[in-house]
């Protein structure tokens, strides 16, 4: 289930600026542990973001996205609308968090 995503959505002139910080190890599959064995890749694969029930972004991430993925985007929206950020990782783990546009 992981830790909650941290996010902030601020509207100005009809455009919402959203910043999201998801909590995930984003293991690259390139790293070796203390015994020299490759640590298997483990990363978020999909991110879906909605605002007021409308899709505003669909993302596909690979293991080259940094640990605790950060996304910043801008879309049409209004104060008071609900922003929902959902992710699914390559082990089927998933998390959904939301905020209200301020």
């Amino acid at each position, binding site marked *: 289930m992981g830790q909650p995503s941290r996010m902030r959505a601020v509207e100005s002139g009809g*455009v919402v600026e959203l910043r999201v910080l998801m909590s995930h190890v*984003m*293991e*690259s599959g*390139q*790293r070796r542990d203390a015994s020299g064995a490759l640590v*298997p*890749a483990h990363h978020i694969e999909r991110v879906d973001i909605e605002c007021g029930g*409308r*899709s*505003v*972004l*669909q*993302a*596909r*991430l*690979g*293991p*080259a*996205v*940094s*640990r605790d*993925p*950060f*996304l*910043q*985007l*801008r*879309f*049409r929206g209004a104060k008071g609308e609900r922003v929902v950020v959902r992710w699914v990782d*390559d*082990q*089927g783990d998933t998390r959904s968090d939301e905020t209200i546009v301020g």
Partner: protein
Amino acid sequence: MDKAMWASRRRLLNSAARVLGLFVLAGALPGHEARAQLDAWDAAFANRDFRSALRALGGEGAAADGQVQLDGPDMAENGAVVPFTVTTALPGVSLIALLVEHNPGPLAAVFALPPGTEAFISTRLKMAESSTVHALVRAEGGLFLARRPVRVIQGGCAG
């Protein structure tokens, strides 16, 4: 779930996406075009070298004519966290991909932007070593590319 299963999922997506890609080219899926395009581009994560990844995205002939801006550092002390921002004034942007040429898997991320979302995305990537970073954009007028060389002091795939 084990690695092999996910590798086979990528392979399945890869072949499924090729078929979908043909439909998209034929204009057979107008209503679902954006979704099909995203799935087609998703398949390029399987490519292990930059040229084949770019080919899988259909971006070999993309215009690198300065209409897409890729902002980021010239030099990164720590390859584990390198910030990039893609922006463009091109109309009808539906997809943005970020590729790190010298990474073991060059395709880093793909973003599908529905109407109403601005052609702007900012994120942070890992870089294994110094490399050119590419932003590929699908807009109304076709495919466009921006490039940026980044010198990496300490590689970031160990994270």
